[in-house]
């Protein structure tokens, strides 16, 4: 097989015995085991690998690691995922990839027309232009044109798992500093996790040609890895990124290729005693006109490609720098056979230790690149009027310690004038930074710091460790003189290559008054790409500082946020996908409901309840009408088990309920109950329900289904925080009592036919009372409450007895035509009665008076929760929205719930909204409830629902359509 044209004949950390086939943008290429997609594309001399986000400018590979700003790819097939930097995609046989923002391909892209329009699309263009009538009208097509990859169509969630781990010391990064730290801590016996994002350990040593002691640096790395792997107390992960540093030393790790081949990823949540960030440093771009042209690359990347992957990124190169690190890179390039035409150094004087690395090479000190030539790829650069032919420009704008994790830990980041970058400052958690991540920019310093930080971490863990003899390591000193923007940098000088943010955009933002760096970031989107501006952010800060006459330290740094590199959603979720995330809650009758054709709903708090039970040939409305009529005219039965139920016990239980309810509960006698409203102290309704007195010191409080947990928390907090001296205990018995509610005029006959020792006579067992006894030979508590407005018996039993009870009721009710009813019919029945429903009539803005329930506000009690606030609000005398009934003048006109009411139906501010609208089986027409400004005074008049498709006139009436005196429910 012919080797790739850009591949060196030998060297590199690739396995030449294992050639791999892959496809990119529809074309077939070859590479080797050990390649990344980016190194293989460069080996094949694919220069245009991407189109830019906004202008669709041609772009090539620019970096060699997670900093890559330009080449994002979408993988297809089993590996399907979007927006992966090509530099982090391990090449595998049969890989199929395409560039994300180009159609049909990066090389020939129809969206490239945007380049011609570039000067019309400055920062903020979309915000300013597409705001009328509504951004959302334009958003979909803009997202498509200025885009990234879509989500894969197929769910690939099967291949992920999550692990939780605790460790004494977590080390992020297995470069020289991280490995040295791991050796010291591991030898001391501490539990160590060392986690590195690369395919193999070594960090920057993989990319450079350095020695440690008397051997090549990678020999030292191999020995260190071998020693660590022999330690039982060390977990060493490669291909795993620490992507988030959370509170209290919780770190999130995304392991991409676990050894278990059935997994595509694993998410670790690691709680660490101590953390060392040894995350290295990331090279900055240089900012000059045309700095995004294919062929312009980071010098460290060019160096990595020749040393690690044996790939020449070009044939004739120029180098553009403001610091010393490129001189070693240029020497490596030349050794690999790249013709280095010149080193252009913006500094007036170049240190001798740098010059010594490149004897004979031309150095243009005090110069900058003025112009780049070549539209689809670099052909030459102009420096001080002189044209230098080259197909590769290796640039270095200096180095940024990778402080991302350190900053995520909430620790301080401070400006370092000498390094011209931000470095770790005071720690906010148990975290230490080591090596280049801490500004130790040479190999010897990194090794020494790794050891020293490990000693400190181990000491903090209460262990002793020995300082090892440090091997000798020779490295070039690092000095830098920042050049934030080259002379002439303007509209084609990219600060953020990924998001197409130029020097001109930054200047526009500053002109328009976005002077704070956080505002500059948001307005221009600089640094907000998925690379999070790894190569560009500090340049943006420097460019802003330059223009504001400040130091970058004064401008400050924007917030570093997780994830450090993109993480698959699947990896975050692990096995917690689908119904496992928030499991449904079922009553003992779920199986029965489903067997009888119920359409199941979620009825708040994850309870599954029947919505309705359609019969063959019935429409939805037919079923609901039939079920509602069954209750009004005969007898129905529903599963009321999800209602929240709490036992409130203790000497002060009555006093407590008097405090949290608006009405008096302590006057209840045992065996009786009372409806009540619970307010929060801001005077708004929290919940409604019925409380029963079981005994002198024992109450049973029922709550709405959806609010049960919130009410529990409310009660517990009041007791434990506000009234710790009161003797009250609350027990959640929601799942200890299940119930079947038999309701309708024939309910008493059905209950009697089931067989009971309870006297059901109206006088013996009145409304709002309960009786303990047996029904169908089962121990029960029967409660006379009604949520439907009809005679109703709520028969509570142990959950295991509910199916038996239910079947007994169905059997006993057969001759009366009993039928199960769902929540839809219940909704109709309660609206006809004007019973309120949390989430419909009660939305956190209404008080009891608004609902016409002023009677529930006790005047006897000096204080209860919400009393002061209701009084305060009403004392203002401002008009309130009040509950009314509505009848559309057209009886067949349904009104959507939530529809707004406006004065006269005009296009004006709303004066209320429709809270519910149902087909009433007692009136054979649509009726509804609404909250309307001054509604009660307007009863008898008209109001108007304003909808996009017309105005509906409604007659206002009292909010009760059935049995206003309540005779039926008391019968």
């Amino acid at each position: 097989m012919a080797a790739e044209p850009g591949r060196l004949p030998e060297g590199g950390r690739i396995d030449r015995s294992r050639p791999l086939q892959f496809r990119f943008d529809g074309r077939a290429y070859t590479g080797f085991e050990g390649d990344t997609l980016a190194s293989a594309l460069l080996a094949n001399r694919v220069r245009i690998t991407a189109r830019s986000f906004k202008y669709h400018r041609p772009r090539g590979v620019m970096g060699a690691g997670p900093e890559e700003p330009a080449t994002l790819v979408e993988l297809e097939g089993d590996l399907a995922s979007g927006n992966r930097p090509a530099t982090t995609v391990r090449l595998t046989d049969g890989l199929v990839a395409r560039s994300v923002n180009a159609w049909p391909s990066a090389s020939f892209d129809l969206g490239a027309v945007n380049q011609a329009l570039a000067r019309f699309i400055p920062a903020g263009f979309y915000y300013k232009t597409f705001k009328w009538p509504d951004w959302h009208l334009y958003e979909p097509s803009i997202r498509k044109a200025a885009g990234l990859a879509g989500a894969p169509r197929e769910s690939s969630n099967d291949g992920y798992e999550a692990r939780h781990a605790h460790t004494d010391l977590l080390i992020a990064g297995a470069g020289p500093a991280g490995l040295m730290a791991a050796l010291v801590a591991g030898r001391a016996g501490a539990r160590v996790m060392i986690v590195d994002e690369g395919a193999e350990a070594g960090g920057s040593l993989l990319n450079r040609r350095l020695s440690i002691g008397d051997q090549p640096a990678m020999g030292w790395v191999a020995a260190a890895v071998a020693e660590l792997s022999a330690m039982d107390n060390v977990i060493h992960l490669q291909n795993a990124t620490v992507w988030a540093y959370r509170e209290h030393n919780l770190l999130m790790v995304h392991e991409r290729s676990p050894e278990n081949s059935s997994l595509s990823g694993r998410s670790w949540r690691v709680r660490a005693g101590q953390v060392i960030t040894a995350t290295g440093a990331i090279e900055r771009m240089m900012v000059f006109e045309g700095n995004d042209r294919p062929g312009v690359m980071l010098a460290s990347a060019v160096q990595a490609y020749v040393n690690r992957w044996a790939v020449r990124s070009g044939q004739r190169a120029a180098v553009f720098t403001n610091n010393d690190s490129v001189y070693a890179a240029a020497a490596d390039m030349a050794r690999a056979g790249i013709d280095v035409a010149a080193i252009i150094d913006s500094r007036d004087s170049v240190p001798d230790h740098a010059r010594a690395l490149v004897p004979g090479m031309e150095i243009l000190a005090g110069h900058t690149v003025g112009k780049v030539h070549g539209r689809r790829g670099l052909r030459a650069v102009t420096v001080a009027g002189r044209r230098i032919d080259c197909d590769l420009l290796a640039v270095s704008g200096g180095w940024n310690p990778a402080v991302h994790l350190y900053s995520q830990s909430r620790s301080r980041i401070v400006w370092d004038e000498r390094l011209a970058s931000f470095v770790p400052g005071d720690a906010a958690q148990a975290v230490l930074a080591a090596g280049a991540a801490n500004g130790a920019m040479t190999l010897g310093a990194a090794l020494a710091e790794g050891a020293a930080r490990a000693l400190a971490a181990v000491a903090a863990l209460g262990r002793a460790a020995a300082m090892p003899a440090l091997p000798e390591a020779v490295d070039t000193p690092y000095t830098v003189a920042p050049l934030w923007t080259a002379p002439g940098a303007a509209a084609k000088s990219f600060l953020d290559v990924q998001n197409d943010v130029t020097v001109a955009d930054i200047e526009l933002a500053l002109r328009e008054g976005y002077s704070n760096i956080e505002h500059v970031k948001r307005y221009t989107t600089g640094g907000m790409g998925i690379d999070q501006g790894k190569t560009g952010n500090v340049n943006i800060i420097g460019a802003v500082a330059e223009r504001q006459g400040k130091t970058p330290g004064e401008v400050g740094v924007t917030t570093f946020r997780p994830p450090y590199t993109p993480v698959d959603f699947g990896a975050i979720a692990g096995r917690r996908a689908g119904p496992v995330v928030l499991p449904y809650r079922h009553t003992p009758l779920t199986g029965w409901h489903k067997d009888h054709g119920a359409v199941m709903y979620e009825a708040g708090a994850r309870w599954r309840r029947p919505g309705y039970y359609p019969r063959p040939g019935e429409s939805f409305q037919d079923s609901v009408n039939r079920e509602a009529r069954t209750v009004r005219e005969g007898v129905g039965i529903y599963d009321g088990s999800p209602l929240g139920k709490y036992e409130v016990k203790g000497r002060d239980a009555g006093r407590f309920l008097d405090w949290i309810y608006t009405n008096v509960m302590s006057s209840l006698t045992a065996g009786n109950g009372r409806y009540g409203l619970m307010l929060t102290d801001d005077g708004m309704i929290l919940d409604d329900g019925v409380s029963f007195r079981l005994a002198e010191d024992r109450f049973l409080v029922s709550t709405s289904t959806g609010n049960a947990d919130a009410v529990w928390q409310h009660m517990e907090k009041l007791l434990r925080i506000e009234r710790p001296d009161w003797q009250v205990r609350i027990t959640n018995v929601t799942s200890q009592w299940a119930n079947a509610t038999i309701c309708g005029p024939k309910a008493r006959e059905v209950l009697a036919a089931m067989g009971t020792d309870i006297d059901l006579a109206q006088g013996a067992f009145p409304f709002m009372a309960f009786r303990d006894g047996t029904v169908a030979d089962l121990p029960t508590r029967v409660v006379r409450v009604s949520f439907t407005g009809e005679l109703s018996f709520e028969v509570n039993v142990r959950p295991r007895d509910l199916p038996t009870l239910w079947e007994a009721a169905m059997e006993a009710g057969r001759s009366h035509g009993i039928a199960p009813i769902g929540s839809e019919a219940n909704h109709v029945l309660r609206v006809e009665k004007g019973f309120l429903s949390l989430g419909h009539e009660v939305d956190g803005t209404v008080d009891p008076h608004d609902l016409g329930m002023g009677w529930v506000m006790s005047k006897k009690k000096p204080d209860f929760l919400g009393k002061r606030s209701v009084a305060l609000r009403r004392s203002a005398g401002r008009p309130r929205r009040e509950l009314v009934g509505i009848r559309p003048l057209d009886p067949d006109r349904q009104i959507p719930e939530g529809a707004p009411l406006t004065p006269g139906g005009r296009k004006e501010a709303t004066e209320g909204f429709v809270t519910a609208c149902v087909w009433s089986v007692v009136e054979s027409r649509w009726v509804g409830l609404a909250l309307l400004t001054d509604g009660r005074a307007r009863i008898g008049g008209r109001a108007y629902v304003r909808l996009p498709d017309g105005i509906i006139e409604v007659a206002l009436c009292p909010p009760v359509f059935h049995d206003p005196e309540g005779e039926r429910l008391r019968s």
Partner: protein
Amino acid sequence: MLLIDCPFCGKRNESEFVYGGPAMPARPADPSALDDAHWVDHLTVPPNPMGPVEERWWHLRGCGSWLTIRRDTVTHAIAEVRHGG
């Protein structure tokens, strides 16, 4: 994911707890004795410092106790955990 040192259960993940809001000043014994402005302040001005703040947490999926913790909103460092208010 905070790590909260419950006085009864030891160090537990935040996911075992329910946040109960910032610690507000104790409810006045007789709200009707307060003038309107003070009552509104009591209700609507929760402490929101950049730094230490006291807040309530309910160990719902643990021992069920209500805790008051002092947490630094910048660093999340928890200086104190106590039972009750």
